[in-house]
């Protein structure tokens, strides 16, 4: 049995973090929450999550800056980091992917869209989800 997958959620809007945690619990994925870019960076110095859900509009720095700092570290060079953004500007997703994000979730997203993206980058056994 492989170790339980751990997701780090970086989100400052309380209603959004509660919602995402519900979605993650629904998928049977354990998670930690931080609300600023600095907290995210210091969390990542101590632990290494299996996937990061990173909001772009953070209060202290942009999610893009956080990503760029993480990507300079060898252990984070290939870690799945998924952007979450409410900016649905034309070409935004492409831009985020070109900057080094693994994938992008545009708010508002449904449980189905969320699950599809997270599963794609973090394989979860089917029965985990059903077990809830």
């Amino acid at each position: 049995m492989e170790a339980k997958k751990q997701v780090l959620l970086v989100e400052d809007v309380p209603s959004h973090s509660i919602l995402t945690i519900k979605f993650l619990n629904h998928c049977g994925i354990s998670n930690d929450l931080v609300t600023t870019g600095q907290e995210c960076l210091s969390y990542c110095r101590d632990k290494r999550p299996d996937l990061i859900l990173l909001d772009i509009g953070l209060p202290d720095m942009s999610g893009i800056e956080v990503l760029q700092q993480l990507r300079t570290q060898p252990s984070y060079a290939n870690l799945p980091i998924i952007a979450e953004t409410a900016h649905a500007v034309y070409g935004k997703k492409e831009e985020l992917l070109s900057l080094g994000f693994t994938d992008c979730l545009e708010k508002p997203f449904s449980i189905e869209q969320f699950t599809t993206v997270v599963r794609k980058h973090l394989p979860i056994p089917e029965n985990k989800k059903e077990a809830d």
Partner: protein
Amino acid sequence: MSCPFRKISHPSIPSLWNRVKAIFFPDQIGNLDSYKDLFPIFNTIFDSIIIIDEHGTILFANQTTEKMFGYTQEELLGHNVKILQPEPFRSQHDSYLKNYLTTGEKKIIGIGREVVGQKKNGSTIRIDLAVTEHFIKNKRFFTGTIRDVTDKKTLEDLRIENVRMEALNTAKNEFITVMSHELRTPLHAIMGFTECLLNGLDGPVNPEQLKSLQRIDHAGRHLLGLVNGVLELSKISANPKKIVMEPCNFIEILENCLQIVLPLAEKKELKLEKSIQKSPCTITGNPESLREICLNLLGNAIRFTESGKIVVTFSCDEKQLTLSITDTGIGLNEQDLSKLFIPFALVSLKRNGEENSFGIGLAISKKLVEAHGGTITVTSKKGEGSCFTVQLPLQQTNLTHPGKEHGS
């Protein structure tokens, strides 16, 4: 040669010339004819040249003056120069001249400035005016040269207006982008938590609660559609050329859209008839945009038709394709037809007792059609139905996409 402007003879008005000579150079009459050869110089000049005395009376005007202001020499000579000015300058001119003669205060003389002139027909022109004062035998004269800068100024105004409009448009698009983001943030919570409840993530809900949740979900989707629509409209308006074009199989796109809307038509027991030509039709376009146009028109036809049928006809020649969607729906009166493509324009059709708007779908479709170099037209009769026709060129003239016969 103390007075180079003396050669005022005009081939057609020798008598006037004599009059001018009498007023202007009473002591030189008899000598001026020797300068007549110099006269054509004034008529080769594109600017108007006018000489007045200290009362403002016109003593000389060249041919350009006639053309510029629409007066003949007879109508100019001996008249006050203020006839060439619109109000309120016309009424002020006498006192301005008098003021200058007593105080020496200059407003134009020796300075030159842009002023407004008035033609005989009452229309105004914008002119650059330069005036010099000079004396001949102790008599004071003013010579003005006038250049019509109306066209130049209009162009300049248009350019300034254009820059202003562009800045305004950029600000508008930025506003819409920010607004869209601001709206999405709470919408994400509304739709997300509704979905959690609908899916039982927070425990079971009773059937009545489920219905309410479905209504919230429906309204949330509607609102998201509007937010996306406004954003999309602003995006296409800002830069229609940014739409990526590629060869697409139009019939495939259309058939695909028909499949999507078929259940909606069946639900309302509407017949969906189609007459689509068999031969393939490849268009250089944006597949997503083409899909959106088809879905919007088909969706509207079904939405606004309660009984009868929707007829879809499609044909294509070597240059363009024509898609027509005819319904037997509620139709529109002429007043509403004119507002059809304006985003959120209110129309008189009332559903559920509320004033209704067309929303934003048709406005987007029109922009998308135009971005493809095509046209969208509509004919309609209140109570009988509507027919929307889209014509699209198969090749974009301003784009060069060599090669590929068929898209993916």
